[in-house]
């Protein structure tokens, strides 16, 4: 059983999240699953104690990770993802997803695909803004966050806040899929640099 901690600090503009992954490692008997790995996600805010918002984000991230991590290869173990918000300037959930994915890749956890997070904001006159800042998020009519996988750009997770029509939803999704290409290219290039060193 390897206990490996890998850290990644993706920065979307000014939002940065530090992610660390432990695992596959020993799991408490109460939490063990007999045929796959138990995935735990912890998100720590910068100010104050973790609250309900953090719990809900943890759950979203965990569901996304469980969909891609090949847990069946490591039964009765635990894979822990720890996220620490270093600075928040909008699109926090998308940044957390990117950090988690890179940390999992760096730690060597087997996955069936990579995933990335993209945030989309719709403002009052219907303009679509990708990767909004905190100010744009506050003034927007709706904020949508999607997690997309790298193989076929399929949707892994979506969470939305605000009012929008179904046409707008499909538009945002299509835009997010286009944006995810850039994010995956970034992953590829930064991983190349990382492993070219050794």
């Amino acid at each position, binding site marked *: 059983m390897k*206990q490996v*901690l890998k*850290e990644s*600090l993706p*920065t979307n*503009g*000014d939002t*940065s999240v*530090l*992610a*660390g992954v*432990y695992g596959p*490692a*020993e799991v408490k008997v109460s939490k063990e699953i007999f045929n796959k790995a138990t995935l735990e996600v*912890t998100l*720590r805010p*910068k*100010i*104050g104690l973790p609250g309900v918002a953090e719990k809900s984000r943890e759950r979203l991230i965990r569901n996304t990770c469980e969909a891609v991590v090949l847990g069946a290869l490591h039964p009765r173990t635990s894979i*822990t993802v*720890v996220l*620490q918000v*270093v*600075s928040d*300037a909008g699109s926090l959930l998308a940044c957390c997803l990117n950090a988690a994915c890179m940390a999992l890749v760096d730690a060597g956890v087997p996955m069936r695909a990579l995933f990335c997070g993209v945030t989309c904001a719709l403002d009052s006159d219907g303009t*679509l803004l*990708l990767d909004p800042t905190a100010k744009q998020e506050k003034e927007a009519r709706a904020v949508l966050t999607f997690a997309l996988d790298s193989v076929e750009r399929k949707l892994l997770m979506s969470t939305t806040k605000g009012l929008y029509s*179904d*046409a707008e939803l*499909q*538009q945002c*999704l*299509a*835009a997010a899929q*286009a*944006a995810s290409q*850039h994010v995956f290219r*970034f992953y590829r*290039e*930064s991983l190349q*640099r*990382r492993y070219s*060193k050794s």
Partner: protein
Amino acid sequence: MKETPLSNCERRFLLRAIEEKKRLDGRQTYDYRNIKISFGTDYGCCIVELGKTRVLGQVSCELVSPKLNRATEGILFFNLELSQMAAPAFEPGRQSDLLVKLNRLLERCLRNSKCIDTESLCVVAGEKVWQIRVDLHLLNHDGNIIDAASIAAIVALCHFRRPDVSVQGDEVTLYTLEERDPVPLSIHHMPICVSFAFFQQGTYLLVDPNEREERVMDGLLVIAMNKHREICTIQSSGGIMLLKDQVLRCSKIAGVKVAEITELIQKALANDQKVRKEGGKFGFAESIANQRITAFRMEKAPIDTSDVEEKAEEIISEAEPPSEVVSKPVLWTPGTAQIGEGIENSWGDLEDSEKEAEDEGGSDEAIILDSIKMDTGEVSNIGSQDAPIVLSDSEEEEMIILEPDKNPKKIRTQTVSATQVKAPSKKPVKKRKKKRAAN
């Protein structure tokens, strides 16, 4: 995750090296590791790296009512958290001892030394004061958490700017960041903790122990001092007994170290202020990007969304229309409404039959119920009786009421006839059929 225990040979190796005045990372006895201070984009945010030990500090402020016995003073709140990414042993529920010790020491160092002027945090006496909250997160544990944390705390406090407030008679105006420039806190002096680790009952001493050295040390002496050589806090833990001149020597060393560290802090703060004033880019993204080969940055990439609308319309036209949802809420009483009818209870006909069989048994004779439960073969027979239900039609006139104690014998023998096996359950079966007819 449990902490991996230190092996005996590693312990002996470290102690022998210390006896020979050698440290594993090549430092001298009184050397500190490299200290690196970087700031974030918001005021009051900093990351301090002492070797590999990393602490993130953030200061925030809020207007609250003051404490009853200190109506004219602001409130200071410190919180150090050992994040799970600092070490595998730091699980959320498990680190109370160390956490309490560190938090308490940090509070004594910063609050009791009165380094922040709390009177200046008062806005309206007895009603509104500033509450300054310092959150420290340990990101990586490589020894000497308290030194790194105290540096992070004082740097964050010096870097922080609170919103400007003006009081005119009864009117209190709180200016936002756009209206007026935020104001720094008034800080009298900068107390910094310096740790000394003792080995072999106080014979050998090391400044700034790293994680391995901390594991094999006998005791720890922490001296918090400011650059004017005033001791703010002193704490000796671990049960080592130190001589007076040892403590005095440590305090002299601490004086030298604190002067160096304070100079470093002033330089970092001045640097950051210069960059902000000149309008250059600042923040963590800048501070990490240039140094390492593993860091990678990509400029803002515009996304071509010109065909997004067409794609979306295609998808919508090909998609099935959503099913019609007719919602007519029925209001039963104020506060209780019902939408929809719900579907029929579909908890299985099999279980239905079992339940009824037991029910019948219970209502007629308690003994029959017991016998049904005792013979597991019996119960399964009831459960799988779809075919027999139909057959029993012709056997109704053969209904025999059997004594319960005869049942076990009947089932044990191989030559038990089908009718006899079914007999004990005939009554319930019959009754069940009747019920079905009624349904």
